[in-house]
């Protein structure tokens, strides 16, 4: 039996943020990761917004292996045969410090783990934690690959399913309506081609989000991010919507169809798929966040349910980094008091409530309910596509005036429902 000050389970962003912060303060910390190396099991879209977490890890960003800083933001509404696209470029996006970067997790997490080790954290990869050890209602350690490892406190950063939180009795199996599944391909493409196709220079990058037909009207959307010399192309879709059918479609088919869309096919042409990955995403919002701590245990990142999906953008990485950081702060306070009971660890909730993390969740608390309507993902994309088609069409005969062209679609009934939807959207 071995004893450590702190054991962190999972070398994802939350776990590494916690370990890095603790090690920096001289606390003895062991990180256990089941993958071959940190990042080997981790999937994101992905784009990392640095602003909210920059100051929490001031030394980290200069050398971090991030891909491209995003200077072009695109959104597409896709109907069956047509799409409407908006692109935003703003000078602030091209100014340092850059707001957001595309990121590949296998690369980033591996590097981040090295930085944590450099600060003094111990890392054991290829080791799966199988259970928690509970004595007198207090978590006092874990079982990993037959070894009994003890610690004053466990920080469970084991991702969205958090089997550990279930074992510690902090939560039960999740409800499909609170989760989405994301799946993506990494497509290698020459960096000069990427820059030409997306109108970028040097390390500039583009982010594009797609909604509507990409998910056949189900809750979710498609995404495309430019990396240094590859593209991340994928789909996020609500698990409940996928299960329920209407229309019935197998998840992988959505991505194949997405790739075949002419709008996408021309962007990925000549590229070579080098990886296919998938992962569940928590997106139940504020209501789905459960217990964040117990006697001798704290949850951080996806394990705590700290990711959200506001329509088409998923955010979880900053919340993972920040919650890992705050969990480490709480552990340091508890260490001073030599008290690792739930009562002592409850400061965690307060720290998170006072930070951008829970403030964001409160601000967007209505999003999951409001957006849980097929009108947003099916009806409006079709409607807008049809209006645009007629607006742009010049027929052989005389062209209708614009007002009647649009009016034809915007019947009284339609306007009435739109107003209703608008009122709901205003809650977001």
């Amino acid at each position, binding site marked *: 039996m071995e004893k450590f000050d702190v054991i962190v389970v999972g070398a994802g962003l939350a776990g590494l943020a916690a370990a890095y912060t603790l090690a920096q303060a001289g606390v003895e910390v062991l990180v256990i990761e089941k993958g071959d190396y940190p990042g*080997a099991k981790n999937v994101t879209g992905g784009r990392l917004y640095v602003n909210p977490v920059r100051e929490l890890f001031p030394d980290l960003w200069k050398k971090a292996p991030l891909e491209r800083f995003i200077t072009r933001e695109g959104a597409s509404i896709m109907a069956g045969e047509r799409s409407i696209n908006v692109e935003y470029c703003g000078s602030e996006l091209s100014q340092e410090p850059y707001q957001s970067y595309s990121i590949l997790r296998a690369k980033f997490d591996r590097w981040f783990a090295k930085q944590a080790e450099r600060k003094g954290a111990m890392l054991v990869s290829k080791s799966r934690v199988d259970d928690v050890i509970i004595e007198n209602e207090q978590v006092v350690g874990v079982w990993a690959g037959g070894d009994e490892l003890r610690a004053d406190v466990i920080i469970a950063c084991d991702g969205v399913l958090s089997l550990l939180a279930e074992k510690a009795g902090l939560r039960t199996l999740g409800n499909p309506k609170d989760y989405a599944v994301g799946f993506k391909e990494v497509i290698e493409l020459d960096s000069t081609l990427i820059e030409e196709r997306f109108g970028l220079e040097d390390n500039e990058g583009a982010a594009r989000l797609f909604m509507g037909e990409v998910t056949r009207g189900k809750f979710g959307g498609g995404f495309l991010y430019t990396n240094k010399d590859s593209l991340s192309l994928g789909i996020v879709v609500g698990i409940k919507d996928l299960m329920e059918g209407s229309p019935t479609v197998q998840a992988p088919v959505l991505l194949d169809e997405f790739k075949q869309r002419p709008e996408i096919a021309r962007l990925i042409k000549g590229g070579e798929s080098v990886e296919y990955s998938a992962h569940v995403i928590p997106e139940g919002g504020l209501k789905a966040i459960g217990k964040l701590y117990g006697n001798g245990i704290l949850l951080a990142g996806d394990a705590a349910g700290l990711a959200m999906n506001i329509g088409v953008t998923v955010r979880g990485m900053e919340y993972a980094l920040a919650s890992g950081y705050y969990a480490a702060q709480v552990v340091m306070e508890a260490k001073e008091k030599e008290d690792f009971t739930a009562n002592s660890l409850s400061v965690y909730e307060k720290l998170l409530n006072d930070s951008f993390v829970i403030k964001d969740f409160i601000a967007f608390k209505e999003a999951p309910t409001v957006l849980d309507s097929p009108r947003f993902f099916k009806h409006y994309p079709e409607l807008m596509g049809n209006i645009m088609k007629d607006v742009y069409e010049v027929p052989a005969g005389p062209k209708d005036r614009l007002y009647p062209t649009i009016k034809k679609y915007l019947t009284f009934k339609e306007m009435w429902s739109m107003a209703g939807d608008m009122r709901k959207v205003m809650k977001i």
Partner: protein
Amino acid sequence: MVYGRGYEKGDEDMSELSGLKAKLGLDVFKHDSEPHIRIKPGMEKDPRLKAAVLVCPAGLYTENANGEVELTIDGCLECGTCRIACGTEVLEWNYPTGGAGVQFRFG
């Protein structure tokens, strides 16, 4: 280390998911001594399992002519979707042992 699963173009089936095997062949998988997900014995016909056929991004669940759902574990991306969709009353679900299973190089 096994790079890909050695699928040939010829052995792709003609279903909608024909490209999927090739796609999974891009990933690095390390062998595990036993399957990490199992359909619980006697649960093969449970209606809750039908969802797995739709949600699994690797298309590893199929329904046979007898209405039983079958799972081929090779190619599992460990995403967790089947666990959320079907629940643990019908599935015995764990991650592969340490160092085994899919190892993403990009993520």
